[in-house]
């Protein structure tokens, strides 16, 4: 009876080897880990810009503050675009996992269009602010605002370029292991940008309108 239990236990141990017993990790996991470290360093950089913005929120130099400048409708639309694109990016990863070309292209296209719509809304907002004399040179608050939101916008732009390049690679090279790992990194990048945007619309737009 005891022996049976012991054997049972052993079998269970074999079924789920610990991380060190399993040998070297799969390359896909190592690549994901490395890119995760990069993303975290990127987020640390964002946190410094966030801190600068939070310190300078009230330093408006007599110029317009957040309450007068921000339009909640446009922010809600931007948030919707980015969230939906994060979802379609997830669906794209699933399509890649099951090697469906058509679904991959379709989801990549939707992700790209939503990301571009987000950027267009943001550029329109920036242009409207600069047109009424609330450009980055107006006050420390606006400098911090344009740095923070613009930095996120630049990341989204880079993500769109990356997505276009990845789709070209899928079309030319197919679903190779290298291409799949790059797509994994892209989806991590895109989801991380959405996390940054969550903090951005909370701290900048919603809390800015409060005070």
């Amino acid at each position, binding site marked *: 009876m005891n022996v049976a239990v012991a054997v049972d236990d052993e079998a269970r141990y074999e079924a789920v080897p610990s991380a060190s017993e399993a040998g070297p990790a799969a390359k896909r996991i190592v690549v994901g*880990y490395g890119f995760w470290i990069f993303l975290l360093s990127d987020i640390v950089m964002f946190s410094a810009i966030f801190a600068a913005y939070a310190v300078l929120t009230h330093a408006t130099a007599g110029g317009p503050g957040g309450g007068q400048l921000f339009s909640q409708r446009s922010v809600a639309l931007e948030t919707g675009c980015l969230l939906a694109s994060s979802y379609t990016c997830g669906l794209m990863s699933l399509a890649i996992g099951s090697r469906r070309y058509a679904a991959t292209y379709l989801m990549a296209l939707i992700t790209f269009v939503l990301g571009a719509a987000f950027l267009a809304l943001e550029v329109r907002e920036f242009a409207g602010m600069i047109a009424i004399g609330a450009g980055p040179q107006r006050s420390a608050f606006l400098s911090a605002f344009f740095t923070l939101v613009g930095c996120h916008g630049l990341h989204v732009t880079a993500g769109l370029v990356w997505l276009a390049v990845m789709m070209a690679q899928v079309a030319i090279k197919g679903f190779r292991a290298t291409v799949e790992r790059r797509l994994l990194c892209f989806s991590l990048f895109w989801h991380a940008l959405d996390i940054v945007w969550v903090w951005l619309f909370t701290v900048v737009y919603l809390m800015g309108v409060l005070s």
Partner: protein
Amino acid sequence: MTDTQYDRAPGDASALPDVEQGTSSGVLVYTIGLALAVVLTAMSFWAANTSLLWAGGVSLGLTVLAIAQMGVHLVFFLHVTTGPDNTNNVMALAFGVLIVALVVVGSLLIMADLNDNMMPAAELMNLQMQH
């Protein structure tokens, strides 16, 4: 020097292990994540605009909602789990969160403290902060 020979690490599986897992459960995970994120976002926008809540507590509530949504994104979109493959990722995330908290909270505390202590006259300090 074929691509496959040099491309594979010693422990790398030849095929992705989760290919046959079925995409319907994957779609479900992303859809749950999206639904939760939409609900939390809507709550944030509602809390910022309503007059039903005590105004002093709204910013704290918004912070809590943002933390919750960050958790939703991490679990449902970035697939941070407690599995053995993810131990390193979670440790790195914890370190990142620590650094972010130090930078943001530290900056805010120090600057608020400076404002309090180096203020000969409130008006003068405001003037300096505004330029």
